[in-house]
């Protein structure tokens, strides 16, 4: 066996390893989306007007027209004598937006000057976004693994955040004088409140699915609208929980002792390494739960093959309700973190962390550990979009387009396999990334 054959074989085997394959697909999807995003930026750059081009495509390019003759004038002359060498572009088109500059702002801008100052505020924003997306991402992933499509993570996050924000308003002030001790009591309490509320709110569609056959996609979408309305109702009226001092629909600010300590970062950056570390621990914990406990086994089995789960003594209905509850609890904890790390109170107009969580989970192949990476990517995108808006004229909604494209490509692994097969014969004709985290069926004959 030659070296190249052996290498090919190794590569083929690696590709067959499904986690690695998922990673490859996710990476390819990301790159392809970035490429198409660049085309969109260029296209948009032709649809708008500007004084001078930010980016120019020229044929032949500058390397041929200017750089090369400068470097090796003799060679150029000997190849094409008599001024036939193109000294200027035959075709050139200018664009108002430069995709490279945009991506530079988007991806590197999100990190800020991280090498010199890892605690810079833009990187802090990235970490904060990542932290919350880790919770919503893993919330979606847990449900997905049980073959439940929890689109209601957004609503569960809102309910969790609302509960934490409101209840702590009453519990925290009396304890404010206790300093660190108060934090030790209040932080876990806040997270618990968020988890319980989010879990309870998710248990409703779970129970409806288990016992009334109601499609969870629809019920959770509806409950998202309901959660937003209820939150608005409760915090827009002073007789309930509105902060009477503010025009905004929000609860009163919580005392600092109830919030995540900022530690290394500055308080104004609204980020906490403690919260980030907590999110990492939760991801690992959920991974352990899924892979190493009977509950996780039941959940994965009923996600992959409900009939087999039933055969294996799993109570299908109860598993649906408990996985939904767990999923909602994670979302609710994410909401609590949003309140306790970012806002410091509850305010209406919660960003779409829940929907981003769906994207994160799908990109991560519904793997809790992969959620960490995917959440970081989306944290970068969300934080970077702010840099893009401030630093360029390209509308930051571009990030929304990228998000959609990434999901689209992740959904079609067959496309990458077909490309892969053009360059090599490895890869098994696999199944698409499925909502249940991938399922297959072998045929017997």
């Amino acid at each position: 066996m030659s070296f190249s054959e052996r290498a090919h074989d190794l590569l083929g085997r690696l590709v067959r390893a499904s986690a690695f394959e998922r990673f490859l697909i996710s990476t390819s999807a990301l790159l392809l989306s970035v490429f198409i995003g660049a085309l969109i930026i260029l296209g948009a750059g032709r649809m708008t007007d500007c004084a001078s081009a930010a980016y120019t495509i020229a044929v032949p390019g500058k390397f041929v027209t200017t750089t090369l003759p400068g470097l090796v004038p003799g060679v150029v002359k000997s190849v094409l004598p008599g001024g036939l060498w193109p000294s200027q572009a035959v075709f050139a088109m200018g664009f108002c937006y430069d995709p490279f500059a945009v991506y530079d702002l988007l991806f590197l801008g999100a990190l800020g000057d991280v090498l010199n100052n890892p605690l810079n505020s833009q990187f802090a924003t990235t970490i904060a976004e990542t932290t919350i997306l880790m919770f919503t991402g893993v919330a979606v992933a847990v449900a997905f693994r049980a073959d439940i499509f929890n689109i209601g993570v957004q609503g569960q996050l809102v309910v969790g955040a609302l509960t934490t924000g409101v209840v702590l308003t009453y519990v925290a002030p009396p304890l404010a004088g206790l300093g660190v001790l108060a934090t030790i009591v209040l932080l876990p309490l806040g997270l618990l409140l968020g988890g319980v509320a989010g879990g309870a709110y998710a248990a409703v569609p779970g129970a409806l699915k288990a016992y009334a056959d109601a499609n969870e996609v629809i019920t959770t979408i509806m409950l998202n609208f309901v959660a937003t309305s209820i939150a608005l109702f409760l915090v827009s009226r002073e007789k309930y929980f509105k902060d009477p001092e503010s025009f905004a629909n929000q609860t009163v600010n919580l005392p600092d002792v109830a919030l995540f300590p900022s530690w290394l970062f500055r308080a104004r950056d609204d980020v906490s390494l403690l919260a980030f570390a907590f999110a990492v621990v939760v991801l690992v914990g959920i991974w352990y739960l899924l892979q190493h406990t009977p509950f996780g086994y039941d959940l994965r089995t009923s996600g992959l093959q409900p009939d087999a789960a039933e055969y294996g003594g799993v109570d299908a209905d109860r598993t649906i309700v408990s996985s939904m509850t767990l999923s909602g609890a994670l979302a609710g904890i994410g909401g609590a973190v949003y309140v306790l790390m970012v806002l410091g109170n509850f305010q209406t107009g919660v960003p779409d962390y829940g929907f981003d969580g769906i994207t994160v989970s799908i990109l991560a192949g519904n793997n809790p550990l992969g959620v960490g990476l995917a959440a970081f990517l989306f944290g970068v995108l969300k934080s970077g979009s702010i840099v893009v808006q401030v630093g360029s004229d390209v509308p930051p909604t571009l990030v929304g387009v990228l998000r959609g494209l990434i999901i689209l490509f992740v959904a079609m692994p067959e496309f990458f396999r077909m490309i892969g097969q053009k360059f090599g014969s490895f890869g098994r004709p696999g199944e698409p990334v499925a909502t249940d985290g991938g399922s297959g069926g072998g045929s017997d004959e």
Partner: protein
Amino acid sequence: MSNFDRREFIKATAGIGAVGLAGMAGCTGGPSDGDGTETTTEESTETTEDSEGTTTAESDVTNVGMVYATGGLGDGSFNDQAQSGIQQAAEDFNVDFNESQPDSVSQFSDYQQQYAGSTDPNYDLVSCIGFLQADSLTETAANYPEQNFQIVDSTVDEPNVGSYVFREHEGSYLVGVLAAHLTSMSFSAGAGSTQSDSTNVGFVGGRESSLIQKFEAGFKAGVKATNDDIDIQTSYVGSFNDTTAGQEAALSMYNSGSDIVFHAAGNTGTGVFQAAQDEGRFAIGVDRDQSVTKDSYANVILASMVKRVDTAVYNAVEATVNGNFQGGETTTLGLDDDGVACVYGQQLGSEIPEDVKTAVSDARQSIMDGETSVPQDPSNVN
């Protein structure tokens, strides 16, 4: 920086069908320094510095960062009004500005810090539009004591923040008076008309909040002060952005007898105008003279409760340019300094009977004289 003219481009490219690359080849947009010229080729290594180059070159330019409210530009009212303020300032002074439109409340502090922390260019003023920014600004301003901020519609008690608030209820009172008079008579102008037998007006709010309730309270008070028998219908559609809901809410009011609907709902108000046109009734705009900004509805817009956010922005920028920006102060703009006003519609204004206009200006005088006190909370209107 802002030498774009997208609207012109749209008109110029009428008929070009495809979006994106397919249409690119045929586009006449793109950089105005030409396609395929030698100079472009030479510059091709340059990146974004091109567009921002001017800022570093001229040192006396004043840089302003605009952080708009979540409704975004294009609402034809609040944010656009703020934008026209900065645009006017840019015309009058050597001012360069950059704009951002946050999607959610939690992004405010990110944008504020982006501008405050920026060194290239170094922003002389960060203008924060909308009361929702107050909380994050309180924190940001304390962390960037060297940076000057402006907040519109709220008060932030920091030495480097200039606060600008309005007495919206007073202006709303005036349009209430106007509406009450017109619904009580048979009046017809432009595309709309009122019936004297129905004395009924409406108010469409955006999202429920104390600020919007100031509009509602003032409007109701103005109506009731004029004629206690008039019915007032009130609807909040829950969004500053839901034009369809605005349209349906207003249609439902018109259909149950309302002659005039006043909106304080940002972009949602577009739907109110559309409804007025559909039903041949009237509407009253908000924040800007909407018979200008939404000129296709000029034939139903009686007046607008103008809130001079542009003045607030302009003044703050002017003060910054002149080096006398006063932080830590709250400027309240009311009727007296035309901070809020009832501005008659471009098309319909001339047709409004003089006695009605007199009643409105009397009411204005009475408020300014302190004879009339306008409530700020709708529940205080009897």
